[in-house]
């Protein structure tokens, strides 16, 4: 019965019911579309997470020791200070890859000559000397090769009269004697053996081995190898053989995060990744050579030096570090780097210092990279660079995240609309039946049955709407998602050529759009449940007895009769009525100005925020400097030899006719000409504004020339350093220079165009360099004698900004040995050194200004073009400028990075991992810019969405408030009509009342705008639209008053 009555109560107002059905169906369709789209976006994110792997590579960014990380004291010191467990103990971390390179001997059956062997050029042979040559060397005929691959069988060769350490051994070289010797086999037109003491080939030689000289005469010792010395020789040969034939082994704690696998340079042909101890991975070629398959076991004897020395890691005295059978767990596709390398999971028994500048690789959850970077940033020293290798994940998910964001907006907005529709109709269907419900309760129907009566009909309509909505949504959701998805593909800076956002291989990704029936049904179920909850709550409200409202006391005008007409002077009946109502009913109407003030303030704030974001979008190119740098094809180093004319000048102008020699032009040029040529090329280039060059030399601090106040500094300061250029005979013979070795160990002098904008100085932000007043980074573009020093050095030497110091500048040179000059530099800045190397910074352009090699006895004309110009000592000005160690590109127009990309592609430059004809690779550092732009775009897009919603809401709120306020005034409306007021008069009176309330609420915003007139252009339009929308709401509400039943109101009996 209740069901029937409830249903009848609904169908007896078919217009209202139909409207409810339509509106609720529409809401359900849109909520379904939003949730379906959201589901699709989340599934696409899942696909992306499965498809991509992200690795954060930790790279040591300070100056590198050319001998390797194991020998780099600074590296070892800095790395040992890092708390690795804190880095890896983060929820985003999936796996950690630490790598160590060791060696493994696989026995004679698995012998492969290793190109990386440190002894590939050494031999131990017996030979007979034949005759002495003019240069002091001897011809010889070999007999037996005890160790080595360069000499096999009986061959003629030469023997050097100097040992490898420069000792003259000519007196030991006797004809027709048979010698046993260890030697370096130098390949030239005729092979020359340079003898060495056998003890030099091992790290901890035995006493016996140490007693053996460069040459051992065994002519008369047929059983020499039976002797103690002979056995020592054989042991040495065996040790060298083991080292020479050992495989390189990389122990990795997460093999699949290693560069070759992560960059897809190789992949498993068979087997699977496992971190099981005792397993190993080999290349397809090695597996073929050794006839090994997955599952086979292979005996390996490992040896390594815990300190890291890569050359001598096996000694017969100590034997192998560890021996075990390894099971082949996987065979990978051949790759040049790893063809003869064995990969093993990082074993427990391995304890070795870090030996790689790329010292850590952390596989992290794709979506949590930024979070992890923030976590890590405080844990690593400033010279550690973090490189994200995400295989293109971050770019691939941008449209997916946008899709998800849109879907959320759509879901929330349509759900809100749904709630509004449900609430409205709950009011219309339920609250309007309050009297009926009251009667039912009085008749003893009971609360439960009365509520059932009130809500069953609506629920039936809701279920019908749910069915219809789900059906319609199922027809269009996948098509709509696909359409939105395709629109979202066009994002910001999608061109990833040369971008740091796409380092290495980019994995193709084409996600599949997925929708699910259960999502639609669940969504619909939730909406219907919402209908149930709202109608139930509304029913309880309807059944509640209304409280009697106290009549509101209206305060009478204080004066007597004369003031009873307070508004007599106000012209116009409607205006009088409106003002009277506002002032005498203000507390009840206060909700309007308050709401309006809030809405207007919100729109004002949004408008200002939009203007800020637009301004941020305009200025981001200035605030976020975008640079590019030259690098190697694998992008491992930014510091590598670059030729000024054949690399830098040619990049600026590929028709530049530079000869790839150290002389730049057709003649030795002046420094001024070099600078002019550079400026001219930079000016003419359409996409490159300038190059910032850096060149590394070495320095030695000589002393203080003058204090900043002009007073004298170090007394008796030398004009130039005293350098002994005389080479010993040994140095001359071996092409070895003690001076050069000494210079290479000196600290670095960086000649750079900028201490703040170059890639090397990327961690030096302007604020971190304390500049002498009047100086800035700009000064570094000129050939000025200025220097920026590390703060620690300055305090150690008690130096002040403004002091002038003298530095000896050293440069090892392949043609002239070591170039040495002394120059005076004014200290114009200091920087926080931290744990970085104590690098001094001076302007790169000095290289085109200073004359190096003045002590070499060479001369050059002051003006190379003028044959009559006087000659001065030294090398041509541009000599040292010809080579740079790193180059940073400043784009002409950061707004048009695609232009730079096109230019680089047309010039055939390589990208990291993508080799083209020009093997120099370029990386455009555009991530910060792209992230900034994306953030601004998203912000603007969000605000752009909020503004129309706010405006619509304003209209709605205007309508609701006006409707509610005027609804209580219907008797007045009716009386006015009954007294013969024209409709326009009545409408105008109520409209003016609501409009004035609107204006009162709007006043604070007007005051703010008077104080900040500069905001007006940004917010004016939206505020006018707000006023218009709210006013429209008022108009509609007032118009609805006209539909009220005047007669019913007037003839109501109390």
């Amino acid at each position, binding site marked *: 019965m209740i069901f029937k009555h409830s249903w009848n109560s609904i169908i007896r107002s078919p217009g209202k019911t139909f409207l409810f059905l339509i509106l609720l169906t529409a809401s359900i369709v849109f909520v379904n579309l939003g949730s379906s789209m959201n589901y699709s976006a989340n599934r696409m994110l899942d696909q992306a997470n499965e498809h991509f792997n992200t690795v954060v590579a930790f790279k040591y960014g300070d100056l590198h020791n050319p001998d390797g990380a194991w020998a780099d004291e600074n590296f070892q010191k800095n790395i040992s200070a890092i708390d690795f467990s804190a880095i890896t103990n983060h929820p985003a971390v999936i796996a950690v890859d630490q790598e160590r390179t060791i060696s493994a001997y696989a026995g004679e059956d698995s012998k492969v000559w290793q190109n990386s062997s440190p002894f590939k050029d050494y031999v131990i042979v017996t030979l007979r000397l034949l005759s002495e040559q003019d240069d002091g060397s001897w011809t010889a005929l070999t007999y037996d090769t005890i160790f080595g691959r360069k000499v096999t069988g009986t061959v003629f060769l030469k023997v050097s009269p100097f040992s490898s350490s420069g000792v003259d051994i000519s007196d030991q070289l006797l004809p027709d004697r048979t010698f046993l010797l260890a030697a370096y086999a130098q390949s030239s037109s005729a092979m020359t053996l340079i003898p060495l003491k056998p003890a030099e080939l091992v790290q901890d030689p035995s006493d016996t081995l140490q007693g053996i000289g460069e040459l051992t005469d065994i002519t008369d010792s047929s059983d020499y190898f039976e002797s103690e010395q002979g056995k020592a020789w054989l042991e040495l040969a065996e040790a060298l053989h083991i080292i020479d034939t050992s495989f390189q082994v990389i122990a990795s704690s997460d093999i699949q995060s290693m560069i070759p696998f992560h960059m897809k340079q190789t992949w498993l042909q068979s087997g699977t990744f496992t971190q099981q101890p005792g397993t190993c991975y080999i290349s397809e070629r090695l597996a073929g050579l050794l006839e090994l398959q997955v599952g086979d076991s292979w005996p390996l004897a490992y040896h390594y030096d815990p300190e890291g020395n890569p050359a001598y890691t096996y000694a017969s005295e100590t034997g192998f570090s560890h021996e075990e059978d390894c099971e082949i767990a996987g065979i990978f596709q051949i790759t040049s780097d790893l063809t003869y390398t064995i990969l093993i999971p990082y074993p427990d028994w391995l304890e070795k210092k870090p030996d790689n500048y790329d010292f850590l690789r952390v596989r992290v959850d794709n979506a949590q990279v930024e979070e992890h970077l923030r976590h890590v940033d405080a844990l690593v020293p400033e010279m550690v660079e973090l490189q994200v290798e995400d295989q293109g994940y971050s770019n691939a998910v941008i449209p997916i995240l946008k899709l998800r964001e849109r879907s959320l907006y759509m879901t929330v907005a349509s759900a809100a609309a749904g709630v509004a529709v449900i609430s409205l109709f709950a009011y219309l269907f339920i609250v309007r039946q309050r009297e009926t419900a009251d009667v039912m309760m009085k008749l003893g129907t009971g609360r439960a049955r009365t509520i059932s009566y009130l809500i069953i009909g609506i629920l039936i309509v809701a279920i019908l709407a749910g069915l219809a909505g789900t059906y319609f949504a199922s027809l269009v959701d996948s098509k709509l998602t696909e359409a939105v998805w395709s629109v979202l593909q066009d994002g910001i800076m999608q061109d990833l050529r040369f971008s740091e956002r796409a380092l290495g291989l980019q994995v193709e990704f084409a996600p599949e759009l997925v929708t699910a029936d259960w999502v639609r049904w669940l969504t619909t179920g939730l909406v219907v449940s919402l209908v149930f909850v709202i109608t139930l709550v509304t029913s309880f409200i309807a059944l509640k007895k209304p409280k009697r409202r106290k009549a509101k006391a209206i305060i009478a*005008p204080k004066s007597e009769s004369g003031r009873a007409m307070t508004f007599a002077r106000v012209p116009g009946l409607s205006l009088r009525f409106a003002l009277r109502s506002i002032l005498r009913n203000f507390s009840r109407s206060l909700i309007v100005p308050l709401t309006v003030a809030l809405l207007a303030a919100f729109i004002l704030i949004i408008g200002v925020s939009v203007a800020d974001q637009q301004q941020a979008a305009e200025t981001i190119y200035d605030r976020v400097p975008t640079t590019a740098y030259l690098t190697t094809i694998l992008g491992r180093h930014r510091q590598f030899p670059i030729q000024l004319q054949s690399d830098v000048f040619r990049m600026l102008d590929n028709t530049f006719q530079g000869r790839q020699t150290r002389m730049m032009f057709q003649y030795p040029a002046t420094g001024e000409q070099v600078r002019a040529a550079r400026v001219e090329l930079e000016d003419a280039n359409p996409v490159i504004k300038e190059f910032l060059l850096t060149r590394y030399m070495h320095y030695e601090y000589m002393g203080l020339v003058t204090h900043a106040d002009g007073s004298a500094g170090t007394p008796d300061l030398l004009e130039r350093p005293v350098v002994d250029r005389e080479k010993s005979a040994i140095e001359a013979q071996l092409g070895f220079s003690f001076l050069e070795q000494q210079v290479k160990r000196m600290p670095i002098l960086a000649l750079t165009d900028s201490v703040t904008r170059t890639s090397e100085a990327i961690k030096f932000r302007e604020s971190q360099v304390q500049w002498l007043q009047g100086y800035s980074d700009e000064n570094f573009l000129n050939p000025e004698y200025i220097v920026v020093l590390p703060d620690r050095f300055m305090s150690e030497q008690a130096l002040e900004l403004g002091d002038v110091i003298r530095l000896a500048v050293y440069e090892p040179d392949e043609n002239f040995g070591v170039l040495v000059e002394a120059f005076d530099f004014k200290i114009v800045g200091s920087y926080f050194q931290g744990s970085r190397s104590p690098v001094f910074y001076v302007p790169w352009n000095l290289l085109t200004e200073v004359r190096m090699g003045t002590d070499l006895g060479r001369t050059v004309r002051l003006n190379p073009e003028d044959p009559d110009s006087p000659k001065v000592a030294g090398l041509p000005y541009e000599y040292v400028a010809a080579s740079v160690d790193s180059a940073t590109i400043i784009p002409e127009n950061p707004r048009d990075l695609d232009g730079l990309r096109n230019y680089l592609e047309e010039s055939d430059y390589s990208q990291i991992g993508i080799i083209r004809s020009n093997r120099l690779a370029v990386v455009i550092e555009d991530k910060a810019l792209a992230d900034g732009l994306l953030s601004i775009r998203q912000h603007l897009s969000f605000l752009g969405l909020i503004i129309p919603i706010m405006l619509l809401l304003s209209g709605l709120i205007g309508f609701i408030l006006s409707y509610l306020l005027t609804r209580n005034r219907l008797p007045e409306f009716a009386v006015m009509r009954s007294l013969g007021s024209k409709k326009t008069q009545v409408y105008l009176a109520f409209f003016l009342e609501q409009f004035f309330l609107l204006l009162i609420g709007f006043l604070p915003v007007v005051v703010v705008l008077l104080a900040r007139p500069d905001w007006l252009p940004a917010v004016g339009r939206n505020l006018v639209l707000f006023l218009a929308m709210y006013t429209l709401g008022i108009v509609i509400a007032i118009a609805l008053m006209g539909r009220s039943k005047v007669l019913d109101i007037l003839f109501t009996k109390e």
Partner: protein
Amino acid sequence: MDQKSPEPILKLDNVSYQYSNNYQSVDAVKGVSVDFHEGKMYAIIGKSGSGKSTLLSLMAGLALPTGGQVIYRGTPTDAVNLDAYRRKNVTVVYQSFNLFPLMTCLENVCFPLELLGKTPREAAVIAKEQITHVNLPDTVYRRFPNMISGGEKQRVAIARALASGAKIILADEPTGNLDVANGEKIVELLWHLAHDDNYLVIIVTHDMGITRVADEVMQMTDGYLKPLIMDEIPAIDALEMSKLP
């Protein structure tokens, strides 16, 4: 008092009125024809739902009849501007007073005058006279309707009715919300307006006391209006009347 206009000021000619919506239609007034003359007080009685108030609203120009004509001084209301008709020619006094709650009593009375184009000051002068006319003290000028008694409210409502200058006063249960003493005073006031000031006063009422002082009494039954001869009034079923709300 006996001087009556030869022509009725208000004439109902076969007036009928039908409420209708999509589901039903109700004939609230059926073919009512009657003449009303100035200087007389008429009482219309009848059960709830008999069509009394509907008939009143038709005479007040708040609605047009669906059949027949309401004729004011020879001109049918469907031929005139109803707003102007209500402003100038007819005025209504309601049971629930229908005063503007946010206006003082004086302002309430001024309102119809201002509608007629008087300035607020001119209107105030006239309004004060009308307030005095209905025997209210000038202390009510500055009071709001919720600050005065029911009887005073009804007097203010009558003052407002008089202020418009209309010669027809329609009263819908004017004593319905008043106690007996106040009700009698209001009836007396209306009687004097009809007989002393030559107004046409038509009162829709359940108050049998009014029928005794009315010049003519009519009964509305199921939409039909029939005059009652004074002697017949006691014959009205007392039980039936007692059922009236």
